[in-house]
């Protein structure tokens, strides 16, 4: 199978924790430049899928492939899988097999950035410092792996100014520029959510994985978030993968929705298709397919 215009290709992904099958034989593709939403009731295995994609878990079975560059790069997929290495560079682009890549390399080389369901900022560091840490690898090279930096070579100063400009750009985009020098732990909840997205974007990702970015936001904040995500998609070469419970976010911005229930994919399509899918409604209402209409009548849908 080749990925077509997909940026991320997940095939037969299975994750078992002892006897528990958290994700079972899941396959989907996230197209380049799309916002793909991963939804499902609590405990459906969405965050597990995220952890597999970002390398925090090593999946029990399955293949997770990511493409940089041209569509033609998919041609090297089978050869790469057989070879047993992590990535393959061809004339058309680079392919990564994320299930073989440790977590920090997923971010560093495959350029997949993520946010966390429970915010994980560096609370004692300022918003600006948080964004500079995100540019660690680039700055590390510029500082000659600390050696040139400690001797005060100007190349590091230049690189740091570029990094600060990049941070400033994202602080402006997320409306946090006035709080740049405040500790991240001091920011209100909604600002922390946005700062985490800004931090992820500062790594320069091709794929941005957002784990419930709208959780705990009020309606106005989640409307702002919608705009931010749409702007990221429009202005940057970044595909977005999104876990979300807030249907106002999912339905209004996603191009493509994948629905999970008990670790199994039950639907896959455009927001409209998914919204009208009987299986999805059943899963969300927690009843068998046959009873859906009955329950819908009961709750007045």
């Amino acid at each position, binding site marked *: 199978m080749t990925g077509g215009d997909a940026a991320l290709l997940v095939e037969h992904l299975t994750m078992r924790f002892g006897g528990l099958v958290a994700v079972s034989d899941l396959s989907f593709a996230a197209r380049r430049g799309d916002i793909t939403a991963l939804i499902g009731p609590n405990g459906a295995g969405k965050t597990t899928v995220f952890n597999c994609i970002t390398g925090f878990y090593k999946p029990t079975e399955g293949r997770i492939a990511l493409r940089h560059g041209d569509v033609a790069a998919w041609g090297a997929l089978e050869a790469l899988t057989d070879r047993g290495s992590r990535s393959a560079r061809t004339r058309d682009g680079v392919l990564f097999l994320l299930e073989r890549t440790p*977590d920090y390399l997923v*971010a560093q080389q495959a350029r997949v950035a993520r946010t966390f369901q429970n915010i*994980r900022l560096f609370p004692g560091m300022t918003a600006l410092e948080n964004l*500079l840490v995100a540019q660690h690898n680039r700055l590390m090279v510029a*500082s000659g792996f*600390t050696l040139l930096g400690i001797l005060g070579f100007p190349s590091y100063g230049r690189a740091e100014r570029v990094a600060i400009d990049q941070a400033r750009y994202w602080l402006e985009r997320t409306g946090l520029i006035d709080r740049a020098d405040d500790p991240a*732990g001091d920011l209100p909840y909604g600002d922390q959510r946005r700062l985490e997205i800004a931090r992820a974007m500062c790594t320069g990702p091709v794929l941005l994985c957002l784990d419930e970015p709208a959780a705990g936001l009020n309606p106005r904040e989640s409307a702002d978030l919608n705009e931010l995500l749409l702007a990221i998609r429009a202005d940057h070469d970044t595909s977005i993968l999104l876990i979300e419970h807030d249907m106002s976010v999912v339905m209004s911005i996603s191009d493509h929705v994948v629905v999970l229930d008990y670790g199994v994919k039950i639907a896959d399509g455009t927001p409209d298709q998914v919204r009208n899918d009987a299986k999805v409604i059943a899963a969300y209402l927690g009843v068998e397919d046959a009873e859906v209409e009955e329950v819908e009548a009961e709750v007045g849908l």
Partner: protein
Amino acid sequence: MKVDAPAAGRRVDVAGAVKDAAIAAAIGFGLFLPLIGFRTVQNMRNELVLETRWPLLLAFVAIIAAARLFGSLVIAPWRERRRDRPAPPAAASAIRTALARLLPPFGLGFVVVYPLLVLWITGFGGAVKWIDNFGIQILIYVMLGWGLNIVVGLAGLLDLGYVAFYAVGAYAYALLAKTFGLSFWILLPLAGCLSAFWGILLGFPVLRLRGDYLAIVTLAFGEIIRLILINWVAFSNGYAGISGIPRPTFFGIPFNASDDGFAAVFGLEFSPLYRTIFLYYVILALSLVTAGVTVRLRRLPVGRAWEALREDETACRSLGINTTNTKLTAFAMGAMFAGFAGSFFAARQGFISPESFTFLESATILSIVVLGGMGSQVGVAIAAIAMIGGTEILRQLDFLKEIFGGNFDPAQYRMLLFGLAMVLIMIWRPRGLISTRRPSTFLKERKLRARSQVSAALVEEGHR
């Protein structure tokens, strides 16, 4: 506490205070009865007999009751009153920030002129004691504290075996200088590199551990190094230690009474003081290098990564930071400075033995870092001065012998005093003397200095 008419102020509840003191005394009695009340001694026929010490026990109980009574009758109302008073005016905090700004340059100026100042005050006779016991000794610990601060304060890795790297540095200098006759200035960086190498060697297997587990393994590593030094007699001469270690020279000119010695070359009268003053400036320079490098590192990506690691390791990995390497650099950097300090220590003493590298040393260095406030350079320096200088001052309090009798050695009580200091710091400043964190960079010019500090409540202490 009963509250009467607010205008009349608060009345102190005497009956309640007495009752509270009685309860404390009863608990003290129960606790100290077996500890102090009874004592077993051997009599002339080598039999164990039980001896009672009622007066001493009574004295302890009385002290407890009196202290408790004093606390509830005097201190508690005083604190109450203090709390009611409005917050101190802005002038007080302005003085505080001004003090915080002026302390480092003035402190630096003071340590630079310190030997000359001592020389001026005490003359040639008494100066060695003050420069060596106070100046050099304290600066060694300041340097060790700053070195450990990188590991514990910045990277948040709790290291209980830091003295192992100090030992590696000391033995590296001692053995290489004695065997190959290399000079201090060649061996100083070499000893640092060797210590850093050992830091990496230890780091590789253990840095996947976190918090308490890491602490235990580093503790064990510290003991392993010490036990190897004790038992591998062929290598390190065991308990007997290594003596006759070559002393550092003034860039080739030895400090001795010979014709080509330092005093003769510079046309001075021979005195051992010149070496001491030279050593003082060497360790001062080494400490300042440690501080300078640390300050620089904090502004480099690696330093920010260390702090980020302390704050949240998972988030670091999600940003593509190789956490293993980052931890290793922190470990190696800390170990390197310990190695420098160790080789200086060996060169200054001329004699080293495993006795100098016990767990107590690690604990002292760690408590300097914790007391000073993790991550704070100034705090660590103040804590080192208080702890090491305090010990030395206890040694100097000879007049106490006249009060308590000839057997009284105040230095024996230093652990008690350290413990007390720790408890007090824990109550009043749980994050150490200077607990706020200074951001490593600012987007805008810092207009308000008071606001440019990160409160301690937000900063993680790592080692969770």
